[in-house]
C-alpha cells in the first residue's frame, strides 16, 4: 500500500450535522492492501447497520456510525466509555471502483472492501523460457 493510502484524511469528508451534539470518536482500524482491493476493518461496537454510512468521494473513503446512547440503567458507578458517534476518513486515491465497494457489520466490526479498478490491479507477469 502506498503511504498516502494509509494516511487518515486531514479533515472528514463531510462535516458533522447540526443535530450531532455528542462527541465524535475515531474508531480503531486495521487496514490491508490485499492487491485486488483494500480492506478496512473498523471497531464500531454497539452500532446498528442502518446507523452506519460509508461513502467514497474524490478518492476519500469516509465512514460515519451513529451509536445509540450507551448509558446503563441505574446509578453509574464507573463510566469509562464516552457517548458519541464514530467518524473517520481515509484518502485512498482514485484507483478504486466506487460502484463495487461493499461493507458488512458483524460482532461490532465494520468491514469495508474497496476493490481496485481492473486496470490498476497488480498483475503477475509470467516469464517464459526462451
Amino acid at each position, binding site marked *: *500500500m502506498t503511504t498516502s493510502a*494509509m494516511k487518515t484524511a486531514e479533515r472528514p469528508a463531510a462535516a458533522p450535522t447540526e443535530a450531532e451534539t455528542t462527541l465524535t*470518536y*475515531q474508531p*480503531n*482500524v*486495521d*487496514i*490491508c*492492501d*490485499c*492487491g485486488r482491493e483494500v*480492506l478496512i*476493518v473498523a*471497531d*464500531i*461496537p*454497539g*452500532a*446498528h447497520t442502518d446507523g452506519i454510512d460509508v461513502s467514497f468521494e474524490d478518492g476519500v473513503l469516509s465512514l460515519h456510525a451513529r451509536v445509540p446512547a*450507551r*448509558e*446503563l*440503567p*441505574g*446509578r*453509574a*458507578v*464507573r*463510566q*469509562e*466509555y*464516552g457517548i458519541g458517534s464514530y467518524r473517520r476518513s481515509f484518502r485512498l486515491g482514485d484507483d478504486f471502483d466506487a460502484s463495487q465497494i461493499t461493507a458488512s*457489520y458483524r*460482532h*461490532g*466490526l465494520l468491514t469495508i472492501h474497496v476493490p481496485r479498478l481492473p486496470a490498476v490491479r497488480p498483475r503477475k507477469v509470467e516469464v517464459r523460457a526462451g
Partner: protein
Amino acid sequence: MSLIPFRTKRSSGMEGGNLTTLADFRHEMNRLFEGFFSRPTAFVPGWLEPTEPGQWMPAIDLSESGTQIRVRAELPGIDPKDVDVSVSGDRLMISGEKKSCTEESGEGWSHCESHSGAFSRAIPLPESVDPAKVTARYDKGVLMVELTKSPSSTSRKVPVLTK
C-alpha cells in the same frame, strides 16, 4: 496508572508498530482526560491495574440499581466463545483473547490499530453478588454482564423496635 501500551503483540512493520502505539496513546489520553474532568472516581487506586502483565484491558461501564449490578465492556471482533466471565465474591473477571488481524487473514495487513492478544480485567464490584445469578450476553461487539447482589449484601430496611 501507566501510559505504557497494554499490548505486546504488534505488527512487525516499523510503521505499523508506531502507528498502533500512537493509536493506543490517543485512546488512553482521551480516556484520561474524560475521566479527569467528569469522573473523579477514575483515579481510585486499584481500578486500572491489569491483572496479568502484557495483557490489554478492556474499558468498562458499571452501574448499580436495586438488587442488580450491570457491567458493559466493548469487545469488538471477538468470538463470544473466546470470552470468559467469572465471578468470585465481590469481584468480576472478564478475560479472553482476540486474534490480531495479521494472524487471522494473512499478509497485506500494514496497519493494525485494534487491540489484539490476551486481555483480562478484574473488576471490583460495589457489593457481593450471587454467583448463580449472573448472565452474560454478547451482541454487536458489546459484552453485557448482569449480576444479582447476594441476599446478605442487599440493603434491607431494619425496623426500629420499641419496648
